[in-house]
């Protein structure tokens, strides 16, 4: 699965102005609503579900990144939104450090293999120092999209 296939280009925000985890999650869902990928009716329940999932165990896996996610019956394919928070935001991350780049993922509920494939694609990139650094430094949507394309074609070098 390719990052460029799952990340909704209209749902990329290189500098999100938020100060808390819950605000970040709401803003990411809003991006997907504005992009037409999530219906306005789903907005509130989706935000609530992602926060509930996050409270059960942080998806701030360390190194300044978090991957909050949700499985939902009402979506038919994996969709993702990306945001950078320049000042960093507390995600109760495993390493205790603030989070600067966030991937929010929504997968179809009844297809766990699709969810795992998407996670593989996301973590394949996020586990690379170069990818994390470039993502955090990206200041325009175009820069993020270019980075995703490079990651998909494995063109990132150390």
């Amino acid at each position, binding site marked *: 699965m390719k990052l460029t296939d799952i990340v909704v280009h209209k749902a990329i925000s290189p500098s999100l102005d938020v100060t808390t985890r819950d605000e970040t999650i709401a803003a990411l869902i809003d991006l997907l609503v504005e992009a037409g990928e999530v219906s306005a009716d789903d907005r509130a329940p989706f935000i609530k579900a992602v926060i509930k999932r996050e409270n059960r165990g942080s998806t701030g896996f*360390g190194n300044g990144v978090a991957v909050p996610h949700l499985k939902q019956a009402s979506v038919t394919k994996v969709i993702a939104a990306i945001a950078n928070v320049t000042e960093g935001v507390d995600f109760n991350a*495993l390493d205790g450090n603030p989070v600067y780049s966030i991937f929010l993922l929504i997968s179809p509920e009844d297809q*766990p*293999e699709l969810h*795992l*494939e998407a996670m*593989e694609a996301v*973590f394949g990139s*996020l*586990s690379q120092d170069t990818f994390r650094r470039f993502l955090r430094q990206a200041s325009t949507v175009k820069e993020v999209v270019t980075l995703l394309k490079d990651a998909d074609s494995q063109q990132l070098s150390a």
Partner: protein
Amino acid sequence: MTPSATQKVKVTNRLGLHARPAMLLAETAQQFGSDVTVQRTDQDAGVDAKSIMQIMMLAATAGTELIIAASGDDADAAVQELAALVKAGFDEV
């Protein structure tokens, strides 16, 4: 010689190695001093069992066969405990 141990296990929980099981696996592996790896039987190299990110990259679905391997003084215990977690379906079957 450094003690080592390996065991083959099958992912049994329906949702596979998603975030919560991956975290559980990594946290458990971190309790041991041994180097521990997890490898899909259909891949050539294993990943660090102490890294959640690397475990997530396995994209191990229900039914995927894994080889858990450890090298170090507590290798046996590490492999046994991790294999038990996978076999128990991370208590979410």
